[in-house]
């Protein structure tokens, strides 16, 4: 214990209880204080403390520690991005509220051109990307870190997840279940083969709960060579004694859904063969006109029966819906699980013929056998449903399928047309579309339409991100139209809001975008 600590202890309790005595001080300080009287406890205490403080400030050396375990950063050999580009990047980082969405684009192009971040922007860029919710941005930054960036990101626990794949290591034997899962999920989109290999090796030692989570990861980018493994796994569970345990029931359901979404899986073919029994085709006009219909046995059969449905597909044993028989319920469930291509195969026709068959079934039963269509809608994010969606939209009108999940399935002209037909909730739709990763360059026609539409809305434009999104996608040729809107004298509060919170910021952002595109060239 040193002098200063001793004095502090006494001072904390108060010199009224215990005095600071000369003996507590080193010899040189005692001499210095020889003129002061210890009897005046407060005076002596403060003088001793003031001297001791100066004594320790002047004399105490910083401790000598073992050499730090930090290897200096490797030399940067990559090409640092030009100042025209990093100055824009710096602007985006300074004003993330106003320009944050431009970061994606700048980092993307930087990576394409083989540039890396300058050292002085590494910390601020990594911090921003670590805190953002945009997975795209998190992924992009990894590509422009360079040697110095990878070095610094590796040192900061909050930045490590931004490291590109090759730089990130995980010891599967010692990692926790959560760490493994996070690693598998993050790598699945980037290196599906590696993830599958690792999962396959570790599968036998994992519990059912973890397997369930892993299967969800495998559902992303499932490849043909992975199907036998999934089929063997399903078979193995079905053969096991514990197949009806809740965890295994869930596993079976996930596996079935995964395999039924794959027309190239053997399991899909087996089920397709069973479903063929419910599709019948009648010919008329000497075979010139064919009518294909669906018929579901009300009491079930060898396939639509409790044993098969619960054992193989892990479906509920009875229908939970009023008005649906068990067999109708199971059929609806299966239809929702299967890849829609199965109906094209079974009907040997396009969706223009398939939809009426479902409709007829619905009309006949007066019950919600429309379930397969609802399932289609829910799962429409998958591009395999696109033909079905387009047909349904054409036949029944867009409002039937006014679901955000449908948008990604449409091509850009179709999407723009769709939005122009029902732009009532354009802002919401745009948010949803982007949440699903759908971004596109607006056509000039669409840009003009949207600008006009937005100018007529009686809303307050307080969401700066919305303006940024528009600025990133709108056609650059629209600038004249926007300038015209800027010069209009506002008539009411809404038009004023539109002008100040939408038009003016949009002009600034388009100028920024023009600068950015110039720098990127």
């Amino acid at each position, binding site marked *: 214990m040193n002098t200063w*600590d001793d004095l502090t202890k006494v001072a904390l309790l108060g010199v009224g209880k215990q005095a600071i005595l000369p003996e507590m001080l080193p010899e040189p300080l005692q001499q210095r204080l020889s003129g002061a009287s210890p009897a005046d406890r407060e005076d002596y205490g403060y003088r001793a403390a003031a001297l001791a403080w100066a004594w320790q400030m002047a004399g105490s050396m910083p401790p000598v520690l073992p050499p730090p375990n930090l290897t200096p950063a490797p030399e940067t050999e990559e090409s640092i991005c030009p100042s025209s580009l990093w100055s824009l990047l710096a602007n985006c980082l300074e004003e993330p509220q106003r320009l944050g969405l431009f970061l994606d684009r700048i980092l993307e192009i930087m990576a394409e051109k083989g540039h890396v971040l300058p050292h002085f922007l590494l910390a601020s860029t990594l*911090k921003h990307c670590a805190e953002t919710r945009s997975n795209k941005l998190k992924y992009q930054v990894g590509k422009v870190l360079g040697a110095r960036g990878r070095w610094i990101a590796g040192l900061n626990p909050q930045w490590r997840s931004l490291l590109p794949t090759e730089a990130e290591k995980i010891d599967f034997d010692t990692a926790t279940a959560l760490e493994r899962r996070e690693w598998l999920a993050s790598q699945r989109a980037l290196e599906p083969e590696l993830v599958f290999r690792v999962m396959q090796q570790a599968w036998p030692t994992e519990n059912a709960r973890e397997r369930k989570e892993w299967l969800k990861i495998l559902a992303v980018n499932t490849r043909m060579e992975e199907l036998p493994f999934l089929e063997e796994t399903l078979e193995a569970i079905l053969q096991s004694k514990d197949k009806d345990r809740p965890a295994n029931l869930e596993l079976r359901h996930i596996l079935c859904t995964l395999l039924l979404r794959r027309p190239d899986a053997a399991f899909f073919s087996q089920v397709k063969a069973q479903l063929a029994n419910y599709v019948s085709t009648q010919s008329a006009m000497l075979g010139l006109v064919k009518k294909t219909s669906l018929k579901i046995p009300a009491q079930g059969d060898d396939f639509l029966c409790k044993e098969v449905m619960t054992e193989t597909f892990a479906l509920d044993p009875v229908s939970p819906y009023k008005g649906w028989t068990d067999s109708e319920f199971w059929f609806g469930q299966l239809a929702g699980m299967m890849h829609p291509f199965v109906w094209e195969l079974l009907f040997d026709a396009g969706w223009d013929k398939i939809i009426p068959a479902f409709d007829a079934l619905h009309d006949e039963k007066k019950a919600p056998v429309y379930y397969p269509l609802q399932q289609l809608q829910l799962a429409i994010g998958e591009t395999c449903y696109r033909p079905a969606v387009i047909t349904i939209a054409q036949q029944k009108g867009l409002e039937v399928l006014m679901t955000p999940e449908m948008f990604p399935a449409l091509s850009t002209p179709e999407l723009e047309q769709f939005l122009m037909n029902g732009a009532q909730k354009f802002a919401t739709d745009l948010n949803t579309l982007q949440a699903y990763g759908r971004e596109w360059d607006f056509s000039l026609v669409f840009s003009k339409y949207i600008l006009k539409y937005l100018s007529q809305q009686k809303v307050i434009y307080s969401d700066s991100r919305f303006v940024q999104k528009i600025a990133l996608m709108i056609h650059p040729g629209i600038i004249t139209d926007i300038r015209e809107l800027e010069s209009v004298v506002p008539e009411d509060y809404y038009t004023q809001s539109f002008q100040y919170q939408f038009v003016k910021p949009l002009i600034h952002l388009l100028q920024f975008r023009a600068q950015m595109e110039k720098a990127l060239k």
Partner: protein
Amino acid sequence: MNYFNADQVAALAPDPSSLKSGRELANALKWESYACNERVLFGEIKGSGKEPYRTQIDLQQLGFKCSCPSRKFPCKHGLGLLFLRAQQGDAFPQSGAEPAWVSEWMDKRSERAAGKTEASEAVAAEEAASAKRSKEKEKRDSKRQSSVEAGAAELELWLRDMLRIGLLALPEKEPAYFEKTAARMVDAKATGLGNWVLGFTKLPYTHPRQWQGQALSQAARLYLLIQGLKNLDKQSPLVQEDIRALVGWNLKKEDLLQRTDLETVEDQWLVLARVVSQEPNDITLYKFWLYGQKSRRFALLLDFAYRNMPIQTLLAPGTSVDATLVYYPSNWPLRALVKTQGETSPEMPVLQPEFPSWVSVQPYIAQVISRMPWATEIPIMVGALRLIPQEERWFLYDEENAAMEVKGASSDELWDILAQTGGRAVSFFLLRSDHSVKPLAWQF
């Protein structure tokens, strides 16, 4: 040709909104015309009026002028033009010939700079003649002296009570307890003592190991200051100046510039850092830390702004400026004033560090403490230091692996320094306080 970089320009912005607007104006399309030469940067930009705003920046003795109605200084147009210059670099148009409105302003500035010294001399002559005024001042000073002594006596009792009862009770005291005593010191015209008292409200009470030692050193040095005041006549003249300044006697800028007995240093001063802090009563305090290239001396310039009012000191960190500084009278001269300011250069020359290791710093610290026991921040320049993160703490290691803890800098700032230095040994400008250091700037 040298020019300010974007960071240096940003450091000149009076507030975030001006910075934001300035950045937006760094767009060539927005300017009707712009150009520069060695001494001035100028441009015309369309504003809300009929005529475009004329913006001009004196690059040698950094100064701004704009015909816009903004009260901010520099205004967004001045910042925008400098940002544009930083962005375009050598592609920025050069113009040997200056428009008349630019030359006129520049010539006036040169004349004014020359006339400033004469004017201050005239004021001095006038004041010297006014013996009556000086007598009144003496009378006022004497009255104030009595008031301060009475306040200091009260504060001594307060401090004695504190130590007798024990410092352990401090964390439980309401801020009002300290504020009341501080207000009494303000009434007694000893604002400096009041600020020392308010220092007790800022101690890190959530960290027992830290606050306890800091509270004792704070109280002991305040007691020492009071004793110094009581025995003022026995001190050397410079220590007397220090005590008076710490207690709250402010020296007027004009008075200081007139005095001939003060130390003046002409040098190329490197602007190491600008530290901005919010003080009570809507006052913003700006601290500019400077280092003289030839004199190897540190200097601290202070500037104050009330609410959004602009400050007079236009110095951007990372630049260097030719200037003559006048040091405030002190036993350890640090605080200074700009007497004359010459050319500003956006470049910072490479310097030889004053101290090669922590061990070599220690005698200097001892010397400063012996001359100025109330020093709270001691600027130093140490070479070959490596910034190392260790769990939640940061250290600066010298070549002998002596490690000083870094405090007072945000984690973001430290990660940024580490990213830039790459874990290599570099020279650091630091502020030493108690057992830690705060980095101000660094150099390869």
